[in-house]
């Protein structure tokens, strides 16, 4: 209690401690708390399932010549045959993606609900219980569906809706169960879970099914997994043979899927170990800066009170009592800092939740494990910051100590040098990374897409009636003055395509090449403004249904010299090449290479309608478009997307990380800035007399400024070299993940180096200026 009082007084008399040391540490701790939420969130994926340790999923590694594709999906046979052949399997389910659908109740339409199909074993495999309904039979019958509680409330205002009928994409489904919505840390999400038997039988032939098994707790795990792999590899053989591909199967434990899956894609955005390391490193570095700052300032503060310590010693204090003094004092200050940090974290919560794009309950922010880690760091901090003064100051020479002096020959302690170098290394490292990552993302966004995405509006959520009259609607829309052209298609830009095999017609010995397929209709090429290299786009002539348009990559893969008019085999029939288009970014973002693509025109179905406007698209014009669609679908709601948004969204993950790094960098700069400023205040005060004497001896203000600034800036430059070396390797490594990338221009380093120098100059400049311009008489009277 007594000590608490003294500490308060010490703080009150030392504004540097209150305004720099305390908040600096608090900022560091708050940043650490917040960033650890991100890390913990990523690490907690799929941990909530009671059966998590016994569930595995199959991944197929499909090898074709040099390239390997890693598919998290299986044939339907995997579900039908593997459980019967492998004894250690207790339950099995497959998931089939139904994408976003519209749901109609008797009174209302709800858009963009996530639909997933699953087998009856779903609940057993994942150990889930229904809130309502019978989980044995819930997913057994044709056209039955289980809703999440959230969806049920939205649709009916209650979860009591068993037996009601809803229509999903114009198909009637009976509700057989309600289940609690899965937490956001699940690698699959759904609003509606329909029975697998409701999937159109035509679809069961393809490689489309995410396959999960619950292993028997008593079975030999290694043996069971080996059996699953072997049986599935066998099942894949007939599928792979015609393409001359080889498939090896592998199982992945459920809890490792989010971060460690070998699959190229997944049911939800894959976690990135790199980002986790990045964010964890960021959190650690910010805390490190804050801690070093704190220790350094506390030690400097200790040197300032040498007189007090000497007095205490003369009064009979021994090493132990002094150590106790330092430890309790730094302990109390750290405790205040923790308090402040918790408060800051609370303030930053909504902003951080917005950044993470999800809700962030306080319980998650202040989890026991997070608090425990922070307390651990604080304990370490108290230990170090208390130890230095305890060992060094309590051993001072009392005679000089009482005069308030201590080894005046040394200008700067190694600790402050270390503090400057470490802080600025980290800050410069972060600044450079930020500059480069920002430029890279900017660059990726501006890589020409190969077509014109601006002013193209897409419409989804079409009903069967509308689809049947697509041609008529297209003609009507084309008549509108603000519409430049229209198109409709099965696939859309920026989204999934169909995987196929292709080879030149007449090539009997060669094998099929893998290729992506977009099924489109005439008008697509013109609306998207694809750029023809040779030939022409599709038009309405009958023969075009057996025609194909390839992109450059596909032509190169097939090795065709003069492609127009040549025949290729895709599916089973020969198709005539009528055009070649320049490569354009279709389903991949510009971070990857453009894969071979075929455009076809035989599919009568469609998912999307597109139209290119001549510029602005007003509300009145939207009404006109809506009225056209409403002729065929009275419930039609204008639900559109812009292609530009879709392409920009591809970098959402990168941008989220970028925002985190930006915030972290700004924080690191603020903490370093405050730390260096405090350091400069301490050193200039210490050198007040020296400066006074120098001025009396005739030194100019400029010379003194040079002296003081050089003393600090030389270490900033040293820090720069360290940071740049690390940056060069780290950033080159990061950039190598991208097919399109900027090169590490020296300009980036110069820019961030200048920025760091500016920060350092701002931090020490003012103090130095004040010291240099002070009347030397005042300075000398100081003694």
């Amino acid at each position, binding site marked *: 209690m007594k000590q608490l009082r*003294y500490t308060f007084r010490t703080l009150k*008399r030392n504004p540097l401690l209150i305004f720099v040391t305390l908040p600096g540490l608090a900022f560091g701790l708050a940043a650490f708390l917040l960033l650890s939420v991100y890390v913990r969130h990523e690490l907690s994926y799929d941990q909530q399932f009671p059966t998590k340790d016994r569930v595995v999923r199959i991944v197929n590694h499909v090898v074709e010549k040099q390239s390997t594709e890693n598919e998290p999906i299986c044939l339907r046979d995997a579900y039908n045959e593997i459980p019967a052949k492998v004894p250690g399997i207790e339950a099995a389910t497959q998931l089939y993606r139904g994408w976003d659908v519209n749901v109609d109740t008797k009174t209302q339409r709800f858009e963009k609900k996530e639909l997933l199909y699953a087998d009856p074993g779903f609940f057993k495999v994942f150990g889930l219980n229904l809130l309502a309904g019978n989980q044995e039979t819930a997913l057994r019958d044709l056209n039955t569906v289980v809703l999440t509680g959230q969806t049920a409330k939205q649709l009916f205002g209650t979860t009591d809706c068993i037996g009601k009928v809803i229509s999903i994409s114009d198909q009637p489904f009976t509700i057989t169960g309600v289940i609690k919505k899965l937490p956001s840390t699940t690698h699959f999400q759904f609003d509606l879970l329909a029975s697998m038997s409701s999937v159109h039988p035509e679809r069961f032939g393809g490689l489309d099914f995410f396959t999960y098994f619950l292993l028997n707790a008593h079975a030999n795990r290694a043996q069971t997994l080996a059996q699953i792999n072997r049986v599935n590899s066998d099942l894949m053989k007939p599928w792979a043979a015609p393409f001359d591909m080889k498939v090896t199967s592998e199982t992945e434990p459920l809890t490792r899927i989010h971060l460690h899956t070998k699959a190229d894609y997944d049911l939800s955005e894959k976690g990135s170990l790199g980002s986790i390391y990045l964010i964890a490193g960021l959190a650690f570095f910010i805390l490190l800066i804050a801690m070093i700052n704190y220790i350094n300032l506390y030690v400097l503060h200790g040197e300032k009170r040498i007189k007090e310590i000497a007095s205490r010693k003369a009064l009979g204090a021994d090493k132990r*009592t002094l150590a106790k003094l330092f430890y309790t004092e730094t302990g109390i200050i750290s405790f205040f800092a923790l308090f402040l940090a918790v408060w800051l974290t609370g303030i930053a919560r909504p902003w951080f939740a917005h950044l993470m794009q999800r809700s962030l309950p306080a319980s998650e922010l202040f989890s026991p494990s997070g608090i425990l880690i922070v307390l651990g760091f604080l304990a370490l901090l108290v230990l170090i910051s208390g130890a230095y003064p305890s060992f060094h100051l309590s051993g001072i020479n*009392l*005679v000089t100590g009482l005069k308030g002096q201590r080894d005046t020959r040394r200008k700067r302690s190694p600790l402050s040098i270390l503090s400057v170098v470490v802080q600025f290394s980290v800050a410069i490292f972060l600044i450079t990374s930020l500059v480069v990552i920002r430029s890279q993302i900017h660059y990726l966004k501006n890589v020409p897409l190969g077509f014109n995405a601006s002013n193209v509006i897409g419409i989804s959520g079409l009903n069967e009636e509308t689809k049947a009259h697509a041609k008529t609607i297209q003609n009507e829309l084309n008549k509108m003055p603000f519409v430049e052209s229209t198109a409709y298609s099965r696939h859309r830009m920026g989204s999934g395509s169909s995987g196929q095999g292709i080879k030149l017609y007449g090539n009997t010995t060669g094998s099929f090449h893998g290729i992506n397929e977009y099924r489109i209709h005439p008008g697509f090429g013109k609306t998207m403004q694809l750029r023809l290299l040779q030939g022409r786009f599709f038009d309405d002539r009958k023969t075009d249904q057996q025609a194909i348009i390839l992109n450059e990559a596909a032509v190169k893969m097939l090795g065709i010299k003069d492609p127009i008019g040549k025949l290729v085999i895709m599916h089973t029939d020969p198709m005539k090449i009528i055009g070649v288009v320049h490569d354009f970014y279709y389903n991949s973002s510009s971070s990857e290479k453009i894969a071979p693509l075929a455009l076809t025109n035989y599919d009568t179905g469609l998912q999307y309608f597109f139209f290119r406007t001549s510029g602005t698209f007003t509300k009145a014009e939207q009404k006109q478009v809506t009225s056209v669609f409403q002729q065929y679908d009275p419930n039609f709601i204008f639900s559109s997307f812009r292609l530009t948004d879709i392409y920009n969204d591809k970098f959402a993950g990168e941008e989220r990380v970028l925002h985190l790094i930006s915030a972290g960098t700004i924080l690191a700069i603020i903490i370093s800035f405050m730390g260096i400023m405090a350091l400069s205040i301490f050193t200039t005060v210490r050198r007040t007399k020296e400066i006074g004497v120098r001025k009396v001896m005739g030194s100019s203000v400029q010379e003194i400024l040079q002296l003081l600034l050089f003393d600090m800036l030389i270490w900033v430059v040293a820090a720069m070299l360290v940071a740049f070396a690390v940056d060069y390797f780290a950033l080159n490594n990061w950039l190598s993940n991208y097919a399109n990338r900027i090169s590490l221009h020296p300009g980036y380093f110069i820019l961030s180096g200048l920025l760091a120098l500016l920060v350092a100059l701002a931090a020490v400049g003012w103090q130095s200026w004040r010291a240099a311009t002070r009347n030397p008489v005042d300075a000398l009277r100081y003694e």
Partner: protein
Amino acid sequence: MISLKKIYKYYDNKYERTYILKNVNLEVAEGDFVSVMGPSGAGKSTLLNIIGLLDDPNEGEYFFLDQPAHQLNEKKKVDFHRHHVGFIFQAFHLIEEMTVYENIETPLFYKGMKKKERQSVIADLLDRFNMVAKKDLFPQQLSGGQQQLVGIARAIAGKPKLLLADEPTGNLHHDQGKMIMDLLKKLNEEGMTIIQVTHNQEFANYGKRIIRLTDGEIEEEILNN
């Protein structure tokens, strides 16, 4: 009580040895009041520091109460500071974060005294020095003379046998200095052994003996009656 035998203190430079104290022999009996005088740099403060075990001699022997003080280890030195000696400084050296009361309490605290006991000791001292009303003030709220009063109260709170005063009046004006010296004299009359370093002849005369130091050597010793 104090016996210094052939005490030398020097600093070695590259080419020569600079002597601060040269062959100092001094006996101080219990109840004595010694004033040490001399010009700047004569070694007065160093002598006092050696007696107070704040500094070690390079050569010579120092017996305190017949114990070889020059051989004490760090722990014993702390003990010495706690139980046998009180310091008064020219610059007061009060702890600025502490009130008057708490400053006086510090040595008692280090001595391991119980709270009740401390309260009564401090109450007596405050009473004696007429500072009861000021006990909750901080040093910087007091005048120099009052600060030195607190310094003395703090020095004698633990009832030391020896009081060492390094220019106790150096930072005070004359009237305040006189008040402090009167107080020291009174303490001496009550049996406290006191050694003070001073520049001021008038204040030196308060002592029973005056020792004159020049260039590290005792030049003369005057008995003062």
